[in-house]
């Protein structure tokens, strides 16, 4: 009787020990893999380029400048009165990604947005007034025909979202810090 109980007890202990050993092995393996996977994330020098300051005084009304930020083009567009009005007058409930123009700009005359189509990452045309700007006067993606309006909102085509607005602040009237 006690023999069997001892045996059962022994087996339980062995099970427990084996499970613990297997568990520790798994934890060790995951812990060793984590730094390897993490090394694939953006490195410190890549992250260091995460903010830039741009002098916007030279951008004429109706034109934009494309600056490079975190390896991505950012559109800084000096909007005309007409374009601002167009952007503000849109019925937000009819948009596929519902955002008002006020949510997307800090000063109405300046639209700052990441110039990467939210469909598959192409750079939309329309920064220069000579380029095609699509049916809504903003940008037109040459890859799969997504149309963006003067607030950088998606209006037509396969892209699901508006052009993202990066974090930025106006350091002075003519200098903006992105990131």
């Amino acid at each position, binding site marked *: 009787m006690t023999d069997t109980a001892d045996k059962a007890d022994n087996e339980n202990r062995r099970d427990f020990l084996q499970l613990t050993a297997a568990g520790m092995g798994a934890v060790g393996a995951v812990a060793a893999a984590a730094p390897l996977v993490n090394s694939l*994330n953006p490195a410190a020098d890549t992250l260091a380029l995460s903010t830039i300051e741009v002098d916007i005084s030279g951008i004429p009304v109706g034109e934009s400048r494309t600056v490079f930020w*975190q390896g991505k083009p950012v559109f800084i567009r000096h909007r005309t009165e007409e374009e601002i009005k167009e952007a503000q007058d849109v019925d937000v409930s009819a948009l596929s990604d519902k955002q008002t123009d006020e949510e997307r700009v800090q000063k109405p005359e300046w639209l700052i947005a990441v110039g990467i189509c939210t469909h598959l990452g192409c750079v939309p045309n329309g920064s220069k007034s000579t380029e095609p700007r699509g049916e809504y006067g903003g940008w037109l993606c*040459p890859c799969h*025909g997504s149309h963006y309006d003067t607030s950088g909102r998606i209006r037509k085509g*396969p892209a699901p979202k508006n052009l993202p607005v990066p974090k930025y602040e106006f350091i002075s009237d003519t200098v903006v810090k992105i990131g």
Partner: protein
Amino acid sequence: MGSGTREKFDNPVVDWVDERLPIFTLMQREYGVFPTPKNFNYFWNFGAILMFMLVVMIVTGLFLAMHYTANTELAFDAVERIMRDVNGGWLMRYIHMNGASFFFIAVYLHIFRGMYYGSYKAPREILWILGVVIFLLMMGTAFIGYVLPWGQMSLWGATVITNLFSAIPVVGEYIVTLLWGGFSVDNPTLTRFFALHFLLPFVIFAVVFLHVWALHVTGSNNPLGIDTKGPQDTLPFHPYYTMKDTFGLIVFLIAYAAVIFFFPNSLGHPDNYIPADPLVTPAHIVPEWYFLPFYAMLRAITFDIGVPFTDIVIISAKLGGVIVMFSSILIWVVLPWLDSHPIRSAKYRPIFQKLILILLVDFIFLGYLGAEAADAKYFGIPVNYFGLAATAYYFLFFLVFLPVLSKLEKGREMPPSINEAVTSKGH
């Protein structure tokens, strides 16, 4: 491996080695006397051709790697230096570059042969699934390899394809940043792609080994799809199939060499001779030709799937396209269970035969659509409607037609054995 009886070899050196490491016994058994159905047609050549192509790609790739530099500032120039200054560099590069295309031509024929003659059916399910794994690894390797010359299509193709992962809910953006090692396809991406492009062929080699192992456990299927019943149905692999495969391989090489030496760039895109520029998007981004059918399925889904009459979106168009594209290949994994019809070969299944030939045409048509501009029209109808119809047939074939035919299709009368079928044909 290594157990069991040894063969006896006349050459004393061979025999001495074999006693200690029975590698010659293994070769003799698996490639020498290995009993192989005697009725293979030339579609059974592609296994050997693929093996040859894998070696060609690894060898030329190794030598190209000795001259290549995986850095965004230098990669394009390094490839041009190979083309202009390295001795015979243009030849190595054109062999490797067009080798990818010919590798895919051979693999598509190999896969289609497997589908047409029911090679995926019991007892060869594992063999088939390993093949699907090899195909997926090949696609990954080829896609990554196309990025290395760092031309416009390299950069933008990589951008479009890696962005597919951003369609995954919640963790998508994180995964894309992890893949890129930055905030766009850039130097860290190129460097890791090069490392992976070097590694993956060896992983493919390992899976090919398993694929061949599984093949040698079950033995080969054959055009009749009936099992071998004894020595009268088979031939030793050597010299019958070694010689037949070599002949087929050389015919394949004639076509391959013609492209390498006379149309080396006909399968590529001119834009990849423009150095990559992250600020200029090419007017029309197309993947390599061998991805076009899958790319067409990706683009066919242009609508959100959600709760009707509300704005609630369950699967966005983007995610839907990605799901459709990946499942179009992953569906092959369960093919042995979708098609449970007892007859293997399409030769004895009249309805299946017609439907799978339509599938072939459908797949080629998808390839055409994949190369069209997104806003192109046929007869005034946008191409993505055609894409949707072709995609629908593709999935209907696997998910509806095959299971239904498994239950209902009445096969043609089959010959009693391979031997009788061959001799009665008056060969």
